[in-house]
């Protein structure tokens, strides 16, 4: 876990990113609690953010499945999933974030809504966005000859605690 470029200094170790995938037979989640964040603040306002999570850090509770993800996402040569904001627009407690998502070596601009709230001495930024696997050149995994859904949902909770 690392935090760079921030003033004031925050602890982001409680942050997590979760993916949800679906197959005709079942759905499952994989969570990474090793979220690397670099951010730039203007007082209490987040101005810019970059987030990185390693593919290998996602744990779905099944080693074999996680290993399969390593293989289909070519994580040995493309180990990271990154997001880097290009625009952050505030609208009350909601934020419209725009930025570049790099996944499986493909970079695409995405936009999503983030809910921001301050609780005690920490800032919480929560949101989700869809990722279409095939648009990032990912071959969908299959079970019993049936492929998983093309859409994978990414949900994140970024926690910035005052140090």
């Amino acid at each position, binding site marked *: 876990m*690392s935090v*760079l*470029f921030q003033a004031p200094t925050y602890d982001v170790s409680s942050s997590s990113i979760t993916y949800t995938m679906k*197959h005709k*037979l*079942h759905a*499952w989640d994989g969570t990474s609690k090793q979220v*690397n*964040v*670099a*951010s*730039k603040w203007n007082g209490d306002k987040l101005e*810019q*953010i*970059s*987030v*990185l999570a*390693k593919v*290998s850090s996602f*744990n779905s*509770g*099944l*080693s*074999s*499945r*996680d*290993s*399969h993800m*390593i*293989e*289909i996402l*070519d*994580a*040995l*040569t493309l*180990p*990271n999933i*990154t997001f*880097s*904001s*290009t*625009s952050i627009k505030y609208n009350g407690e909601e934020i419209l974030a725009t*930025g*570049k998502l790099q996944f499986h070596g493909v970079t695409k601009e995405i936009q999503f809504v983030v809910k921001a709230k301050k609780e005690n001495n920490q800032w919480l930024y929560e949101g989700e966005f869809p990722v279409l696997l095939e648009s990032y050149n990912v071959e969908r*995994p*299959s*079970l*019993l*000859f049936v492929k*998983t859904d093309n859409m994978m949902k990414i949900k994140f909770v970024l926690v910035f605690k005052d140090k």
Partner: protein
Amino acid sequence: MYKPIQFSKTYLLGFLVGCIFCAQPVAAQSDSLLQQLISANHVDSSLIQPPAKMLFTQRALWGTSGLLKNRYGGNDLVANRQKDLKIRRTMLKLHQIGGFVTIGGMVAQGIIGSQLYKGDYKVKDLHENMGMAVNLTYGFTAFNGLFAPPSAFSRDKKITSIRLHKWLAVLHLSGMIATNILATQVEHNASLKPYHRAAAYVSFASLATALVVIKF
């Protein structure tokens, strides 16, 4: 009288340069933030090596002292591990296909076997041939499961579907061995027929359950 505004070339050039410089900082700062994260996050060395825990059958082939230790010739560990995982994926697909074919064969064998059990000896040869076919597809399936390169991780601590799948494999493998041994004995000792049938049913039930519990 209307007079259009005229811009000099120098003014236009200055304007364009100004626009570019104003737009650059956001993107540049964003990239700089990301770059610092990326530079601190390379490939996990733990992914390049197979996990410490693996089946003895896998260790015999893919382990550091296994039969295939010099399998690709090159020293590029990342490329070698990628090839391992690709082979693993192909073998596990074949394992799935083989499992389905075997289950189908077992169902057919169950129908033929019950006719033979009732005294229809015309199907005896068919029963034997089907037994051979089921043994072959079962062996093929088992080979692809047992000798596939090890996964990237071995971090499961609780009971998972894969662990159940493996435990059930012990049961159906034992059932298959017992069924085959009893099949050779039945010709000389007809009283063993119910045991042969029971062993076959146990093999079928545990293989079918192993197939159901597995998840992607």
